[in-house]
C-alpha cells in the first residue's frame, strides 16, 4: 500500500483546516482525514461564543498588540509569548479567509463582520455568527473539504502510532463499521482530536467522545505531553449532564442561591456578586458545596441558579436558548423553578507538546488545536481564543506537514503489528471469572477527579486521587467487552476511550501534585499564591515504565514582563 502523504486524525476545526491548507499547499498530495465520528459532528460545533480577531470592525482602536497582551495576561503568564504573537497576528487573516470561503457571520451596520465583548478582552473583538459560531465554522470547513475532494475515513477509531525508531510510519485504526483493523502508512501524521476534559465525565460540559485519544496515543508512543494539570472549569453546568448554562443568565441578573436560601456570592465577591470572574465564581460554588450548603440529589450535590424573579417575559425574550436547554436536558422550566447547577470541566489547556509549527519531538508527528499545547493559553484560556487556536494552528500544521511530506519515505507497517492489535482488542472480549463494568469505572473516574483534582486541590486530596487512579487502572484490566460483534461495536470503543482517559488522568493528577502554587485554573489551597521563582515554567510528561516521568520547560518570554493578574 502506497503511504499517504498526510494522515490527519480528527475532523474538527483543526483537522479540517489542516487538510484544506495542505491541499492548497500542494494539490497533488494524498491526504486522509480519519475521524471516529462524521466530521460535521465534531465538538467544534459546540463553541457558541465566537473567535477573537483584532479586525477593529467594532472598536476602531483595537490592535493585534492588545489582543496579544490580553491573551498573555489571561494565561497567567504561562503562555509562550512568541506563540501568542503568531496566534493573534494570524487572527484577522484567518477570520477573513473563513469569510471569503463562505462562513456565515453576523454583520454590523457597515456590512463588516460583527464583533462583541468577551471576558478578559480589552476591546470587543470576538467575531460571531449568532450563538452558533463553532457550528457554522465547522460546516463551512467540512463543505470546503468536500469541494476539494479530501478523502475522509469516517467512523475509524485511531488505536496507535506505528513507530520506527525516532520516526512515525503511520497510524493503525479500527474501522468501526466493519471491525477490521487497518494500517494507514503515512509520511506525516497530524493529531487534531480535541480535548480531554471529558475525563471528569458527568462533571464536564464536553461531548462524550472528548476523551483525549490523540494525546493518549502520542503519550503511549513516547511523545511528551505538556501542562496537563490545567483544566478550565465553568461555574454553571447543569447538574445532571454538566452542560453549560452560559454566562448570559447571570448577565441578565440571575441569582446563585444555596440550600439555606442565601445569595452566597455576597461572601466571595460582595460588589460584583454573580458577575465576578469565572474562576472566582467557580471556586465559590465549589466552596458552598464542600461546606455542606448545597442541595443533594442522586446525580450529586448542586446549587440553584434562580431566574424566576426576572419574570417570564424577560426570560422568554432574552434567554430563550437557556430556557430551552433547561427544559430539554434537565426537565426544568426556569420561569417556574430554579436551575440546578454546579461547576463543570470544559476545556483542557494542556496537550501534546509542540513547537510553533505543530511539530512534536517525534519526526513526522504533529498536533494542533485543543489536542496540542503550543502553548497559547498557558494556565487559563480566554473565551474566544479556542476557536481561533484550532484555526490558526490547524492551518500551520497542515502547511508544515505538506512541506515535509515529500522528504521522507516510511517503511511499511507490518502485518504483525496489525495482528498484535487484533489480539489486544480480542482479549477484552475473553470471558473471565471476575469482571468490571466500564460504565462504573468511567463514573468513578469522573468522581475522583472532580473530588480530588477538581477546582480546589491540595496535596492530601491529590494523593488520594492518584491512589484511586491506580486502583481504577488495576480494575480496568478486568473490564470485559460483552458485545463481541465486529460491526459497530460501541461497547469496545467506549472501553478504549476509557483506557485513554485513564492514561491521561495520571498525568493531570501528577502535574497537579507537583505544581506547588496557584496559577490560572490550577488552585492549590495549600499553596494559594503564584510562585514565579519556582513555577514559572511548563511541566512535561513522558511515559516511562508505565508511569509519567516529569520534566520542565522554560516559558518563552517576550515584550511582557511578569505582573500580578488582576481585573
Amino acid at each position: 500500500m502506497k503511504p499517504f502523504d498526510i494522515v490527519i486524525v480528527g475532523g474538527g476545526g483543526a483537522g479540517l483546516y489542516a487538510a484544506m491548507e495542505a491541499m492548497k499547499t500542494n494539490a497533488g498530495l494524498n491526504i486522509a482525514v480519519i475521524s471516529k465520528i462524521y466530521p460535521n459532528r465534531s465538538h467544534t460545533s459546540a463553541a457558541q461564543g465566537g473567535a477573537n480577531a483584532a479586525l477593529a470592525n467594532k472598536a476602531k482602536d483595537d490592535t493585534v498588540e492588545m489582543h496579544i497582551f490580553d491573551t498573555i495576561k489571561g494565561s497567567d503568564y504561562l503562555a509562550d509569548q512568541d506563540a501568542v504573537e503568531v496566534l493573534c497576528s494570524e487572527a484577522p487573516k484567518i477570520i477573513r479567509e473563513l469569510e471569503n470561503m463562505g462562513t456565515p457571520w453576523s454583520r454590523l451596520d457597515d456590512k463588516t463582520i460583527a464583533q462583541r465583548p468577551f471576558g478578559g478582552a480589552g476591546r470587543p473583538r470576538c467575531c460571531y455568527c449568532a450563538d452558533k459560531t463553532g457550528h457554522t465554522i465547522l460546516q463551512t470547513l467540512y463543505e470546503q473539504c468536500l469541494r476539494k475532494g479530501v478523502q475522509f475515513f469516517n467512523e475509524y477509531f485511531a488505536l496507535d502510532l506505528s513507530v520506527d525508531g525516532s520516526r512515525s510510519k503511520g497510524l493503525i485504526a479500527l474501522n468501526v463499521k466493519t471491525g477490521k483493523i487497518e494500517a494507514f502508512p503515512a509520511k506525516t501524521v497530524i493529531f487534531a482530536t480535541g480535548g480531554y476534559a471529558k475525563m471528569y465525565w458527568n462533571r464536564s460540559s464536553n461531548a462524550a467522545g472528548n476523551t483525549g485519544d490523540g494525546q493518549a496515543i502520542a503519550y503511549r508512543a513516547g511523545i511528551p505531553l505538556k501542562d496537563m494539570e490545567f483544566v478550565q472549569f465553568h461555574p454553571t453546568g447543569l447538574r445532571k449532564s454538566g452542560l453549560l448554562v452560559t454566562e448570559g443568565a447571570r448577565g441578565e441578573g440571575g441569582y446563585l442561591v444555596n440550600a439555606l436560601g442565601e445569595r452566597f456570592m455576597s461572601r466571595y465577591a460582595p460588589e460584583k456578586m454573580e458577575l465576578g470572574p469565572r474562576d472566582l465564581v467557580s471556586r465559590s460554588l465549589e466552596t458552598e458545596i464542600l461546606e455542606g450548603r448545597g442541595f443533594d440529589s442522586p446525580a450529586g450535590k448542586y446549587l440553584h441558579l434562580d431566574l424566576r424573579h426576572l419574570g417570564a417575559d424577560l426570560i422568554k425574550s432574552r434567554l430563550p436558548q437557556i430556557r430551552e436547554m433547561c427544559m430539554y436536558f434537565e426537565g426544568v422550566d426556569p420561569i417556574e423553578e430554579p436551575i440546578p447547577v454546579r461547576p463543570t470541566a470544559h476545556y483542557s489547556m494542556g496537550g501534546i507538546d509542540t513547537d510553533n509549527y505543530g511539530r512534536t519531538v517525534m519526526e513526522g508527528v504533529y498536533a494542533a488545536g485543543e489536542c496540542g499545547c503550543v502553548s497559547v493559553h498557558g494556565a487559563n484560556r480566554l473565551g474566544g481564543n479556542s476557536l481561533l487556536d484550532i484555526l490558526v494552528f490547524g492551518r500551520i500544521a497542515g502547511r508544515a506537514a505538506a512541506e515535509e511530506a515529500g522528504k521522507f519515505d516510511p517503511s511499511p507497517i507490518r502485518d504483525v503489528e496489525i495482528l498484535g492489535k487484533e489480539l489486544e482488542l480480542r482479549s477484552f472480549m475473553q470471558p473471565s471469572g471476575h469482571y468490571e463494568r466500564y460504565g462504573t469505572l468511567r463514573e468513578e473516574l469522573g468522581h475522583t477527579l472532580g473530588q480530588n483534582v477538581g477546582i480546589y486541590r491540595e496535596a492530601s486530596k491529590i494523593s488520594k486521587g492518584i491512589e484511586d487512579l491506580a486502583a481504577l487502572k488495576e480494575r480496568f484490566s478486568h473490564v470485559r467487552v460483552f458485545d463481541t460483534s465486529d460491526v459497530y461495536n460501541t461497547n469496545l470503543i467506549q472501553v478504549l476511550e476509557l483506557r485513554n482517559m485513564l492514561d491521561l488522568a495520571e498525568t493531570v493528577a501528577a502535574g497537579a501534585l507537583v505544581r506547588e502554587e496557584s496559577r490560572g485554573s490550577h488552585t492549590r489551597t495549600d499553596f494559594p499564591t503564584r510562585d514565579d521563582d519556582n513555577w514559572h515554567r511548563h511541566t512535561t510528561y513522558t511515559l516511562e515504565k508505565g508511569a509519567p516521568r516529569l520534566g520542565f520547560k522554560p516559558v518563552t518570554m517576550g515584550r511582557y514582563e511578569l505582573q500580578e493578574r488582576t481585573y
Partner: protein
Amino acid sequence: MTDSTIQHNEDKRDVTFRVHRFNPQVDSKPYFDDYTIKLEKGITVLRALNYIKEHVDPSLTFRAFCQAGICGSCAMRINNMSKLACTTQVWDELEKSREPDVIKVEPLRNLPLIKDLVVEMDPLVGKMQQYSNWVDSKMPEEQWGRKEFLVSEEEFLKYDKATDCILCASCVSECTILRANREYVSPAILLKSYRMNVDNRDASHEERLAGLVKDHGVWDCTHCYRCQESCVKHIPIMDAIHGIREDALESRGVKDTSGARHAEAFMEDIEKKGKLVEATLPIRTNGLAWTLRNLLPMAFKMVIKRRTPPPPPLVKSTKGIDAFRAEFREMSGHVAKDHEKKSGE
C-alpha cells in the same frame, strides 16, 4: 431548613423502552427488545439509553456525541417520529405513547441500516457532493484572507436560519418521497442547496440549480411538510424548497423541466376550467413519446379497471367559473408584480 428542601422530591416511574435490534452478523431480520428501568423526571431518552447500555445491555448500539442537541448524532425514531434522543424528555414522550409506559425506539428510515439504531450516513454525504453543497467563492483562492465581502444583515438573514441545519437526517427519515425513491435529492440537501444559492458570495448558482431541476430533484417534492414538522431546529425547510422552485422558474423559464411544465399545465387548466384535465396532463408535462413509453401499460390497466379520467372535451368548466377566473387573474397579477419588485431590488 428541613430535609425536604435538600432532598429534592422527585417523581419516579418504571418505563419500558421497546428498542429496535439488529446485528447483521447474527440476525436475519430486526426484532424488538424491551428494557424496563426506573427513571426520575427530567431524564432524556438518550440518558435512559446510556443507562441501559452501561447497566443492562452493553451490546445496545446507537450513536451519540455532544449530548447537547448540536452535533446531530443521536437522531432516531422515538414513538414514530424522528428526533434527537438527547433533547427529548422521557416524561414528554410518555404522554405520546400508544401503550402506557412504553416508548418505542427505532432507527431513522430511508437510510441503510447498520446495526440496532445506527444507519449509514454516507448516502447523505454523497448527495452533498452531488449537489455542490458548498459556497464556491467568487473570490479567487489566492486572494483569500485580505478583506471581507461586505454583506448586509439583510443578506445574512436570507441564509441565517438555513445554516442552523445540523444534518441530523430527521427530515430525511420522515420524507415521504424518499420512502418511494431513495435517489430523491432529500429535504436536507435541498435546504443546504438553497442556503448556498441565496449567498451572494457564491459563484455556482446556475450550475447548482441546473442539477436541482433534473430527475429526482426539487420538482419531486409533494409538499407533505413532513420534513418541516420533524426538523429538530425548527427550520422552515419548505420555504427553501419553494424558494428553489421559484428561482428555477424565474431564471430558467417554464419550459425548462417536466416539473416546471407540470406546474404550467396546472395553471392553464385551472384558469380555463377551474379543475384539471388529467388525461392530457402527462403529455403536456413530459411529452407524447415519454407518455406512450412510460404510461401506456398503466393506461391499459386503468381501462380494465374503468378508472380512466374523462377525455378532455368532456371536462366541463366548474360552476361559477367566470367569477373564479376574475379572481385567478387578479392573483396572477399580484404574483407578477411581486416578481417585478424582486428583480428591481
